[in-house]
């Protein structure tokens, strides 16, 4: 075990000195995250923010503040009507993506806010965003109610004490722009960086240092395991840096830290696993780089890193074969709903790619000659 860390530490020292890993794993993705947020992010916002209709009937003490709250959040594409049936029609005919209205059969001590989504698949993302916004506004209203209750004179009739958001049609676990691109970019670049780190195994083989390591009284697996450890440390540190960087500089919201840590750990497993599999399959450092670029670019495209994938149909199914889709959804749930079993499931989805890849790497054993 000591030998493993001796070699891994030497590798890390070399990576720090070369600086290329620092550029590739941290500086480049941060710069691209910023570029996404500044350019494509705003375009994404116009796609993701729903064309929304809110039903505000006369005297409704809650939906009025909700409308105000949504507008305060910069939510401009908003239509206010007083007829629930009209709202449903506007959604059904595709004029609007979603409607927010009171549920008709709610219990007397609570208010149910119904998010009625358009069944058109192209609107599903918008509906999801609508629900996130509704939840956020609902939480703000509930807080205001609680504060009002503290100040209300005795005998005052207060509004219902709870505010429940009911979803219909659309999932509500969708990231908003800055975070979406931060998460996707981080996943993509860290997997690419992992390949570049692991592929130095071929450089070690070519310059003879790999053979030299194998001449030490250690197991034949040591160089590969040490490279995996070094790779994992690089990815974990870079992930932490990118998470903090995107939060501080771009305002991204990844959700509770426990979920971020779990998803980050899963990403490390997948980044290292695929990198080691590629390294052991490829015949040279150049080939490993090419395979890594092809695989991760495909994962990024089909997983929705660069373009948002519709939530139904073939592309939606295809995207499930990308760890980045699982990562994006996992962070979406973590940020939208909070840390829980669903985040764990998504982390498992991310890590499964790495575990399969690690099995491939483990099955590849090469004979190393001294020269």
């Amino acid at each position: 075990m000591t030998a493993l860390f001796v070699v891994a530490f030497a590798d890390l020292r070399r990576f720090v000195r070369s600086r290329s890993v620092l550029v590739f794993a941290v500086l480049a993705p941060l710069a691209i995250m910023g570029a996404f947020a500044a350019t494509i992010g705003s375009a994404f916002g116009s796609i993701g923010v729903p064309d929304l209709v809110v039903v505000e009937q006369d005297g409704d003490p809650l939906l009025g503040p909700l409308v105000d709250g949504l507008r305060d959040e910069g939510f401009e594409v908003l239509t206010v009507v007083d007829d629930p049936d009209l709202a449903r029609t506007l959604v059904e005919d595709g004029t609007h993506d979603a409607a927010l209205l009171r549920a008709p059969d709610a219990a007397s001590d609570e208010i149910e806010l119904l998010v009625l989504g358009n069944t058109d698949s192209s609107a599903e993302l918008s509906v999801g965003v609508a629900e996130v916004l509704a939840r956020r506004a609902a939480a703000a209203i509930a807080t205001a109610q609680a504060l009002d209750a503290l100040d209300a004179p005795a005998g005052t009739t207060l509004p219902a004490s709870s505010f429940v958001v009911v979803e219909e049609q659309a999932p509500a676990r969708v990231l908003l722009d800055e975070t979406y691109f931060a998460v996707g970019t981080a996943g993509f670049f860290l997997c690419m960086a992992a390949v570049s780190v692991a592929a130095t195994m071929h450089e070690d083989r070519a310059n003879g240092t790999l053979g030299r390591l194998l001449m030490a009284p250690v197991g034949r697996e040591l160089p590969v395991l040490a490279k995996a450890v070094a790779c994992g440390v690089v990815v974990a540190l870079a992930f932490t840096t990118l998470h903090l960087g995107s939060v501080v500089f771009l305002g991204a919201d990844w959700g509770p830290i426990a979920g971020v840590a779990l998803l980050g750990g899963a990403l490390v497993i997948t980044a290292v696993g695929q990198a080691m599999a590629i390294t052991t399959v490829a015949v040279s450092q150049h080939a490993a780089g090419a395979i890594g670029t092809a695989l991760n670019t495909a994962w990024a495209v089909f997983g929705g890193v660069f373009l948002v994938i519709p939530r139904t149909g073939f592309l939606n199914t295809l995207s499930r074969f990308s760890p980045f889709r699982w990562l994006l959804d996992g962070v979406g749930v973590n940020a939208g709903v909070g840390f829980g079993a669903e985040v764990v499931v998504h982390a498992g989805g991310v890590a499964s790619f790495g575990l399969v890849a690690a099995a491939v790497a483990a099955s590849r054993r090469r004979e190393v000659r001294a020269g």
Partner: protein
Amino acid sequence: MTLVVSRLRRSFGDRVAVDDLSLRIDDGERYGLLGPNGAGKTTAISMICGLLRPDAGRIMVGDREVTTDAVEARREIGFVPQEIAVYGDLTAAENLRLFGRLHGSRGAELDRRVAETLELLGLAGRAHDRAETFSGGMQRRLNIGIGLLHRPSLLVLDEPTVGVDPQSRNAILDAVERLAADGMSLLYTTHYMEEAERLCDRVGILDEGVMIAEGSRRELVAELGQLDRLRLSLDRPVDEEVIRSAPGVADAVFDGVNGEVSVDDARHRLTALLAAIADQGAAVRSVEVIEPDLEAVFLHLTGRALRDGGA
């Protein structure tokens, strides 16, 4: 540490790189494995060091079988590969410490060995410089240092002076001689005859994967049947017949004051021959002893020069 190699064989596809190779190196012995490029030297030592699995045969380092107990056998072996296998972005000391730790050295003992090795190889002044900033010769020396840091019982050097300037080459050979003098067994592959003759007690000549001759230099030359030659320059002519009658002399040909004498074991016969010349009133201005070398042995055995390669 004794090395015993028995009937070693290794093929790559249809090409047999090493065929039925056997050799033995006794404790403290210096053994040279000679042959042109492509003769199978590197393949042979890769198997001896446990880096390459033989198709057949047995390798014992002391009482360890390399193919079945490679990890323990490698504790006894120091390996210096043909290429410069050092981490260029680590310093000389960091390279040595890394491989020292892998061989189990720690703390003060490791510090001492690193310092001693750097001193031995003349790199103490550059201990904290990155290896990539070194000249080729210095990198070669560091390459050797990594192999001997853990004080192996058997040091295996695979053509350690290839592409090295004469100064560094001499420093390397001096260092190897000092190590050998300390009792370390040595397996040295080269295609430079003069290195083998300087360093090795015995040599084996490998050609196309087959050991074609083995023994000390003198034994191999004796098998060749060639005599030593003395090239003489005198201050006055002498009678050739008198020279021919001197002990051990087979032939003598003179052209005036310059001549060449064929003699069995020139170094031992030289005194008597010079006395015979002095008896004729002549004085020797210069004398050169020319002994048959391993190059001649190889040429005799294979019909081509050792450095032709292409085997």
